[in-house]
């Protein structure tokens, strides 16, 4: 492999990896936000807990 091949491999993996990690992180964040919102809505909709007599 020529020097240029190593340069392409280095930049490709580093920049591609950075983009892939950023995209995965944003997806994880979106899923977590949706789950958090769902939990909050369920908690608001749930009946109040039974109080002891």
């Amino acid at each position, binding site marked *: *492999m020529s*020097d*240029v091949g*190593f*340069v392409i*491999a*280095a*930049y490709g*993996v*580093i*920049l591609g*990896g*950075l983009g892939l*990690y*950023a995209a995965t*992180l*944003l997806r*994880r*964040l979106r899923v*977590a*936000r949706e*789950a*958090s919102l769902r*939990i909050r809505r369920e*908690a608001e909709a749930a009946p109040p*807990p039974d109080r002891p*007599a």
Partner: protein
Amino acid sequence: MRVRLLGIIGLAGVAAATGFGLFVVPADLNQGDAQRIMYPHVASAWLAYGSFGTTALAGIGYLWKRDLRLDAIAVAGAEIGVIFTAFAIWGGMMWGRPVWGVFWQWEDPRLTTTALLLALYVGYLLFRRLTDDPARRAARAAVVGIVAAIDIPIVHFSVEWWRGLHQGPTIGSPDKVLNPSAPAQFVIALVGMVAAFTLVWLYLMIRRYQLARIEWQIEEHGRLGRISAARRAASVSTVGPAEEGLR
């Protein structure tokens, strides 16, 4: 919105620094085009140090203040540090093969201690999965993060302390910053890439921190739900079915 803007500026910066490093800066007289790999390699390595340093400092802060937000910063630093360390190792390997003739050499202290750094923080991330209790996990992880950070100065000074394939620092001391041995264009390309990567790093740190906070809230909700279900089950078994029927 500001965080998104930071991400866009970082992305544009990386694109500009890549274009400058690949197409504007001339090839090195001795190393040829392989020299261009140095820009993302060095930037990744410095940010790996920064990430793990952040994890260690946040760990010290957590042990002192017992604030789970500091634990969120610590985990963000560790995860992003692992990513940047992997990039630094990959870039170094791609540079090493055409310049040194080998991808890797275990006898080289810089390479070996960097591989150890990667293993330590992958271990840190796995270690965090051992316990469900956020406070206990944060305290234990803080200790592991601080102990693992001992390897950071060892990695950095390994090229001065021991002999190996890896060259000494091009810009490491104040004198070398003011009078770098590399040509000005090379230094501009390196500093530009470090600056652009730093913006992206900051953006990723903020996003990973936000994720850690939300994950903690979801986890806490699940934990409280399990505790309340266990309490309900315990009270039903104590009251008994007959008494329950009289109510």
